[in-house]
C-alpha cells in the first residue's frame, strides 16, 4: 500500500530527524556537553513516525522518559527542544524540564515523563477532553514494555475501555526495561494479549517497519475517531543505544544491536522498500538527510548560543496564581 509522495517524505524526514538528533545527543552527552541523563530512542523511529503521521495539533500524545522521538514526530520545534536539553532559557520549557519533560501543549505534546507509566492516564484524560468537548481529537499514549507492568497501565486501559474513549495505547516493546529483558519481566510472548482482559482489540506490529506501524496505527486511530473506543498496539522494536547514555550494556549480547542495525534498521527498511517500489529515489532521501543534518547542527548551535535561565525565574510557573509563596 503506497502513500502520497509528500507523506512518504514526511515520514522519512521524521525518522531521519530523530536518528540524527539522537546520534548527535549521544556524542554531545558522552563529551559532557549536555547536563543530566539522556534516554535515546535511536532504532525506534518507525513507531513515533508511523503513529504520529496520523495526528494533527488537536490530537494529543503522552510520552515517556525516552521521549525525543515522540516530540519530534509530534512537531515540537527542534531548536527549542535542543535548547531545552541544554538547560537553556530558549528551551521549550525554558530549561525547567530537560530531556525527561520535553513538552509542548500547543502542539498536543503532553510531555515526556519521568515516571514509568505516568503518561498513560494523561493520554486517557486528553481523550476524555476530546470526547466531552467534541473536538474530534484522539489521544495516543506511548510507553514501554516495562511500563506494561505498572498498575497505571492496567487502570488506564480498563478505564478507557469502560468509557469508550478515543485513545490508542502504543506499547513500544524494545525488549528491555532498563537491564531486564521482557522474557524475564513478563511470562507472555506478546504483551498485546493483555488487551483482551479489557475487552479491547490488541495487535502486534513490526515496530521497525514504518509501513506496518503506519497501517496499524491508522486503523486504530480511525476506530478511536469514530468513537469505537481504544486499541492496544504493541510495536516490537529495539533501542540501539543503552538505557541511558553511559549504560555499559552488560546485559545484552554483544552482537544484538549490530545485528538489528544491519538487518532491521527502520530507515534502511524504509529506503529499501520505497526505492524497490519506485515510490522515491535515493536522491530524494539523501536530500532529506542533508537538510536534516543541517537542521540538527543548527539546533545545536542555537542551543549553545542560548543563555542559561535567569535564577530569578526559579519560582516562576509553580502556579498560575499564588499569593506570596512561603519564605524559606
Amino acid at each position: 500500500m503506497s502513500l502520497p509522495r509528500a507523506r512518504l517524505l514526511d515520514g522519512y524526514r521524521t525518522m531521519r530527524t530523530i536518528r540524527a538528533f539522537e546520534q548527535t545527543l549521544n556524542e554531545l552527552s558522552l563529551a559532557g556537553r549536555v547536563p543530566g541523563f539522556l534516554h535515546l530512542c535511536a532504532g525506534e523511529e518507525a513507531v513515533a513516525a508511523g503513529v504520529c503521521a496520523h495526528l494533527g495539533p488537536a490530537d494529543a500524545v503522552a510520552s515517556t522518559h525516552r521521549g525525543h522521538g515522540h516530540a519530534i514526530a509530534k512537531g515540537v520545534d527542534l531548536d527549542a527542544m535542543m535548547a531545552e536539553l541544554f538547560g537553556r532559557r530558549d528551551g521549550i520549557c525554558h530549561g525547567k524540564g530537560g530531556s525527561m519533560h520535553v513538552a509542548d501543549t500547543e502542539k498536543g505534546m503532553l510531555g515526556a515523563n519521568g515516571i514509568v507509566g505516568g503518561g498513560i492516564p494523561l493520554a486517557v484524560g486528553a481523550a476524555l477532553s476530546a470526547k466531552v468537548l467534541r473536538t474530534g481529537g484522539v489521544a495516543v499514549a506511548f510507553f514501554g514494555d516495562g511500563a506494561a507492568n505498572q498498575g497505571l497501565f492496567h487502570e488506564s486501559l480498563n478505564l478507557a475501555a469502560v468509557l469508550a474513549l478515543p485513545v490508542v495505547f502504543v506499547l513500544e516493546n524494545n525488549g528491555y526495561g532498563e537491564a531486564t529483558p521482557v522474557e524475564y519481566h513478563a511470562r507472555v510472548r506478546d504483551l498485546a494479549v493483555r488487551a483482551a482482559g479489557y475487552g479491547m482489540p490488541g495487535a502486534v506490529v513490526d515496530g521497525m517497519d514504518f509501513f506496518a506501524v503506519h497501517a496499524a496505527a491508522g486503523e486504530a486511530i480511525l476506530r478511536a475517531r469514530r468513537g469505537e473506543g481504544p486499541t492496544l498496539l504493541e510495536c516490537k522494536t529495539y533501542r540501539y543505544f543503552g538505557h541511558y547514555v553511559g549504560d555499559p550494556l552488560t546485559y545484552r549480547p554483544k552482537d544484538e544491536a549490530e545485528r538489528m542495525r544491519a538487518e532491521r534498521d527502520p530507515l534502511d527498511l524504509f529506503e529499501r522498500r520505497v526505492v524497490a517500489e519506485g515510490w522515491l529515489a535515493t536522491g530524494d532521501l539523501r536530500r532529506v538527510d542533508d537538510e536534516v543534518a543541517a537542521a540538527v547542527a543548527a539546533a545545536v548551535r542555537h542551543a549553545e548560543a542560548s543563555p542559561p535561565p535567569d535564577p530569578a525565574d526559579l519560582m516562576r510557573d509553580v502556579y498560575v496564581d499564588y499569593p506570596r509563596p512561603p519564605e524559606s
Partner: protein
Amino acid sequence: MAERTLTFVQAINEALHQAMERDPTVVVIGEDVAGGGGRAAQGIEDAWGGIMGATRGLIGRFGAARVIDTPISEAGFIGMAVGAAATGLRPVAELMFMDFLGVCLDPLLNQAAKLRYMFGGKARVPLVVRTLIGAGLRSAAQHSQSLHAFTTAIPGLKTVVPSNPHDAKGLLLAAIADDDPVVFCEPKTLYFTTGEVPAEPYTVPLGTAAVVRPGGAVTIWAVGRMVAVALAAAETLAAEGVEAEVVDVRSLSPLDEATLLASLARTGHLVVVDEAPPRCGLAADLAALAVDRGFDLLRGPVKRVTAPHAPVPFSPVLEDAYVPSPAQVVAAAHAALET
C-alpha cells in the same frame, strides 16, 4: 435576603450544581458519583450520588457524559482527570477517603503538581480533588486519616479544608474556578452539621484565613473539624476569664500568613490545633512559621494539640481518646500562657 440553612454536604452539592451549570467544562469523576454505573435504562442512574450523597442529582441534571462513574482505579481516574485538566476540562474528581492517596499519589505528586513548572509555564491544570478526611466514624486506621499535610507539602498543589457549610460552598466554587490543582479536604464528621449558606454562587478566596472568634489573651490556630474544638475550648477558657482568639486556617496552601500573624501579634501566645499526628504535620508547619516570622511576637511556647503518633484505632473509647478534645486545647492554652 432571608437566612437559609444547609448541611455541609448540601453546601458541597449546591456548589457542584452551580459550577456545572455555569461552566460546561466542569465534569465530575469518581466511584459511584452517580452509582449503578449510570444505568439509565433501568431507572437507577443516581443510585448513590457519592457515598455520602455529595454528588446526588448531578447525573440527572448534567448527564453521564459529565458525571462519570469509574471503576475502582484511583490512580487511573485521577491521572485521567489531570490529563483532562491539561487539555480543556475542569474536572472535579472524588477520592472517596484521603487514605486512598496511597494508591493514587503519583498523578498528584508527580503530574498535576509539576506539569506547569516542568513545561515552563505552558500547561494549566485546573483540577479539583475532593476527598474525605478525619476520624470519628469508627472506621479504623485506613478510613480515618487526615493527610492534608501531604498535599500541603507538595509545591504546585493547593490545599483547603473548610470547617463549615458556608466556607464549604465558597471554597469549592473558588477551587473549581482556580487554574491550579486544588485538593479539597472535607472533614467527614462535619458532613451533617448545618450553617447559613447563601443560595447564589459566591467564592471564599483561596489564601484567606478567618478570625472566627476574637479574643486578646491567646491565639488558637485551628483547621477543619478542629475549629469547633477550638471554639469549645475558647468557651471554657472564657469562663476562666481567658479570651482566646480562634483563627480558622482553612486555606493551607496558599497560607494566609498575614491574618495568622496579626492575631499572634494581638495576643503573644499561641496554640495550634490539628487532627493529624504531630510529625511533619500542619501544626508543626504553623508553629515553625510562628517561631520564624513571629518570634518577636511570642511571649511563650507554641503548644500543639494534635492526634498522637499512632494510627487511628477502631474502638470507640480509643478513637475518642485519639481525636484532640477541647480539654486538651484548654490545657495547651494554659501551658502556652504559663511563661
